[in-house]
């Protein structure tokens, strides 16, 4: 995924967002979430498996704590109800899906337009300089070290690095990816709306 254009990835994510949010069919939503996770993994974005898994189970469990609908199974004295389970899974999938869609569509090379975009680029410049300079300051006391860091960086020329230019990207591959990604997700939404019990 690193060779795809950050701008096209961002726009693709933005266009797929409604197709994911308006999806009420649970298997379809699960498929979309799985697709986002697989694409993130394929793009070798840094992935932590445990936090989303914990989030998924805890959100589902939290919703099960408010029983609603037909009782499916009882574990001890705790009833698992159909509507609560459906709501929990739906919310958990939405949460996880949005996180991975976001990770997929937004890279550190994504550059927002306008004056604010330029200011964010400048902020990223300072952020990168901070991570480099922090190791070079020998001071042991945290606050003095931080103060030295701020004084050093303020004196440095604030040349904003163009964050969008650091990774070469293929325009044709990006457009192909965007077309398939957007069409696939919207088609799934249309299909599940047209055939609700599929």
């Amino acid at each position: 995924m690193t060779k795809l254009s950050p701008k096209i990835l961002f726009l693709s994510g933005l266009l797929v967002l409604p197709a994911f949010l308006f999806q009420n069919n649970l298997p379809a939503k699960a498929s979309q979430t799985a697709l986002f996770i697989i694409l993130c993994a394929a793009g070798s974005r840094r992935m932590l498996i445990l936090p989303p898994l914990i989030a998924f189970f805890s959100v589902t469990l939290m919703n099960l704590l408010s029983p609603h609908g037909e009782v499916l199974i009882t574990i001890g004295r705790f009833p698992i109800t159909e509507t609560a389970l459906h709501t929990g899974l739906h919310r958990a999938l939405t949460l996880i899906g949005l996180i991975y869609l976001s990770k997929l569509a937004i890279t550190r090379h994504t550059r927002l337009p306008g004056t604010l975009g330029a200011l964010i680029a400048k902020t990223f410049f300072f952020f990168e300089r901070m991570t480099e300079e922090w190791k070079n300051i020998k001071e042991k006391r945290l606050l003095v070290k931080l103060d030295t860091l701020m004084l050093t960086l303020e004196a440095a020329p604030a040349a904003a690095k163009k964050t969008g230019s650091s990774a070469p990207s293929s325009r044709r591959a990006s457009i192909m990816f965007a077309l398939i990604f957007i069409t696939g997700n919207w088609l799934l939404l249309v299909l599940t709306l047209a055939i609700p019990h599929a």
Partner: protein
Amino acid sequence: MMKQTRIPSDTLNRIALLAGLAFLLSAVEYTIPKPLPFIRLGLANFPILIALTCFSPPQVLLLVVLKILGQGLIQGTLFSYTFLLSASGSFSSALVMIFLYRWGGKRISLIGVSIAGALVSNLIQIYLAGFLIAGAAVALIGPPFLIIGLVSSVFLGILAQRFVQTSRWVKNVQHMDGTAE
């Protein structure tokens, strides 16, 4: 005729510098494992507390915008509920902190301002988390969320207070921007 209020480039640079610090702190926080993705220690609020003593309210809000967008870009959460929770919490807490710092005078220290900001931010986030994700069971995550927020805000408030009292950078900025008290 309307008076144009453009922010000088030096001030913009300093705001970007503080926002860079917020990015750094949120990157540090991102590496700390949490049971739920929206639970936060709020380390990135440290630069906001510093900014209260150096910049005008609109400039502090600009820093908040940069912090929120930067966090969304670094953590890749710009399209997610996490971003919505973070943005609403950050804005509400910034407004409360600005109000308390500006109108509280010397009666409220940065520690008090930090606690109030964290409280408002966490309450807003709990409400939204209940509405969007957890439902009525949000009452279960509410107390630990508020306790973590309280402890970390006291810690950040103490650090910010000490930094503002001792920092040469803060003194320089206050002197140049005329915000020294």
